[in-house]
């Protein structure tokens, strides 16, 4: 990955440039997308169905949700795009001597840039609601981002390699991600999750990332979730290396199967 740094950098830049080329608002879509999502969810859950979240700790609700939605968008679009990336980049794999793993990496990294572009909006919200951030606690933020990055790189390697052989993984993932979203404490706090399902939520790696983001950016008080986060980091590293192993094993088949 280090060896292809220049290549990855260029391709990420190309991805970002090409994505909004020809659209009027250009890069602003990176801001508008999460904002729209946010306003829809806050309307539904704060205005239409206000009962469950009427909790003092969750005010302002929009901010709480935003802390989860931003990383979730990064997560889900990375996985979805990664599932297609080897097939759409088939030309490169078949005709050019090209390190295939660069493609899923670029997907994840390009989406990470979008995630970063969403952070200023979050900052605006924080200032608007006068939520002071603990600078010490904020040091955790890059750690959380790093854990998510490792996890995503690993998952994207898995997903991209397997989709070459099973094209319908893409469609399965679309549905799975919808389910996954609701199985992650983003629109509800973990504390309100039913007791009997807690174990399931705890198995979901995104749960711990979402909680960590919320702890750092939303809740007052120290980051109490760091043990889970460290465990997740270890797990993510395992996922990454396993993903790389699978990808490497299947690598030779890409040029023929894509």
């Amino acid at each position: 990955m280090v060896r292809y740094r220049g290549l990855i950098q260029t391709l990420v830049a190309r991805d970002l440039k090409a994505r909004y080329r020809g659209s009027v608002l250009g890069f602003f879509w990176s801001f508008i997308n999460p904002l729209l999502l946010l306003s829809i969810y806050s309307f539904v859950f704060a205005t239409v169905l206000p009962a469950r979240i009427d909790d003092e700790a969750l005010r302002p609700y929009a901010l709480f949700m935003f802390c989860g939605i931003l990383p979730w968008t990064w997560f889900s679009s990375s996985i979805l795009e990664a599932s297609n990336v080897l097939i759409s980049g088939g030309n490169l794999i078949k005709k050019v001597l090209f390190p295939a793993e660069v493609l899923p990496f670029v997907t994840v990294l390009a989406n990470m840039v979008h995630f970063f572009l969403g952070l200023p909006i979050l900052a605006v919200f924080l200032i608007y609601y006068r939520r002071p951030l603990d600078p010490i606690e904020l040091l955790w933020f890059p750690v959380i981002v790093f854990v998510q990055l490792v996890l995503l790189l690993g998952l994207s390697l898995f997903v991209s390699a397997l989709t070459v052989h099973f094209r319908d993984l893409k469609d399965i993932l679309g549905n799975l991600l919808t389910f996954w979203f609701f199985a992650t404490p983003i629109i509800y706090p973990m504390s309100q999750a039913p007791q009997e399902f807690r174990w399931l939520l705890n198995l979901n790696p995104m749960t711990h990332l979402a909680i960590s983001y919320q702890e750092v950016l939303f809740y007052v008080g120290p980051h109490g979730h760091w043990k889970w986060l460290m465990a997740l980091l270890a797990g993510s590293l395992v996922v990454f290396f396993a993903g790389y192993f699978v990808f490497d094993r299947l690598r030779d088949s890409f040029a023929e199967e894509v």
Partner: protein
Amino acid sequence: MTNAIEVVNVAKVYRRYARRKQFATLKSALLKGSLIRDLQPDETFPALRGVTFGVPKGCTYGIIGRNGSGKSTLLKCVAGITRPNEGSIVVDGRISALIELGAGFHPEISGRENVFINGIMLGLSKREIQRRFDEIVEFAELQDFIDAPVKTYSSGMYMRLGFAVAIHVDPDVLLIDEVLAVGDQSFTVKCLDKFADFRRRNKTILLVTHSLDLVEKFCDRALWLDKGKTLAEGEPRRVVAAYLIDVEKSEEQELAAAEAVRVKSAADVAAEIPPGASAGGPADSAAPSDMFKATEGRWGSREVEITEVTVTDAAGQRSHVFQSGDSIQIHLKVRAHQPTKDFVFGFGLFNADGICCYGTNTYLEELEPAELSGEGEVRFTISQLDLVEGTYKIDVAAHKLDGYPYDYHRLLYTFRVKSRTKDVGIYRPDHAWSFSPTIRFK
């Protein structure tokens, strides 16, 4: 001299999956518990079988062979895009593969940005590209369009830009797969100049092509690949000659097979008219109204029957492929069901466009018929086949002096004329050029 490319005993097997597999899904694989089994190929197809060769540094090496002989697979293996199943390939130095031009261009962004991205993909650094940028754009002849998005380019512009980037990577080893057909004449010349420049600088070129001229003119060594196996390797002229002989042989077989089918179907149609029965003149025997526009077929009363037609070379060997200038013979076996004094034998030669190149008959050449009875043979000899390259068809006929057809075989027999000179027209008169001393050629 050390070898820049060393290919040892390389074999590559492509897997083919049964139809079922193509529609198989992860879900169905899991349901049937056949996940592992479905990943196993049902059939294999050997694309390369034990290919071994070495390309010395600075050598231009040509690979020729028919479609599907494994040339491109070999090139991809050398480029490292696919890995061979057996054997080893060692390449010394930076490779640039001109396999697909402009692979990886993004349609939405400008030519300028694509040059940079493509260059980095091919292994250049940003600074190196910067330095060569103007040269690349100039080579591609795209100065006016370099800032337009690539999606607005014509396919020629796209290819030229791809070619320009790839060639400016300045590789030690250049792999080329039939990509010289990317531009107009002047661009092709420019590409060839660039290759010549590469050769001068002692770079190694591996060239896959169908252009045998290019191999003979350009390559120091050549390899002929057929069905994944090396059939000949070494001096280009010798390899190309061996290849050409083989191509002729298979053309020969093809033509013979096609001819057999044509003759058979014509005979089947003709058989509906009982041979020997005077069916009442040409009108009844399905003769076409305009003899010069007629399509293939066979008609006639069969009172005199042409039972067999063979095309042979001077030695009497059946053949369908001739070199321009060769001698050719057409043998007709004829049988007269009743002795007759009224007969003419005719011959016609047509090119692939259906233009009559030559036609004659015994009457026109003032041979008075005297007697034809029983079986006999007619031989028509052309001592010098002065025709340009192409496929030609033959008419043979036996008819009465007034044109009433006994047996007319129209365009049923085919032969091909080959020539190393790409001259045009139909007829190639025996000719020579001569010049005064003030006019010189290299």
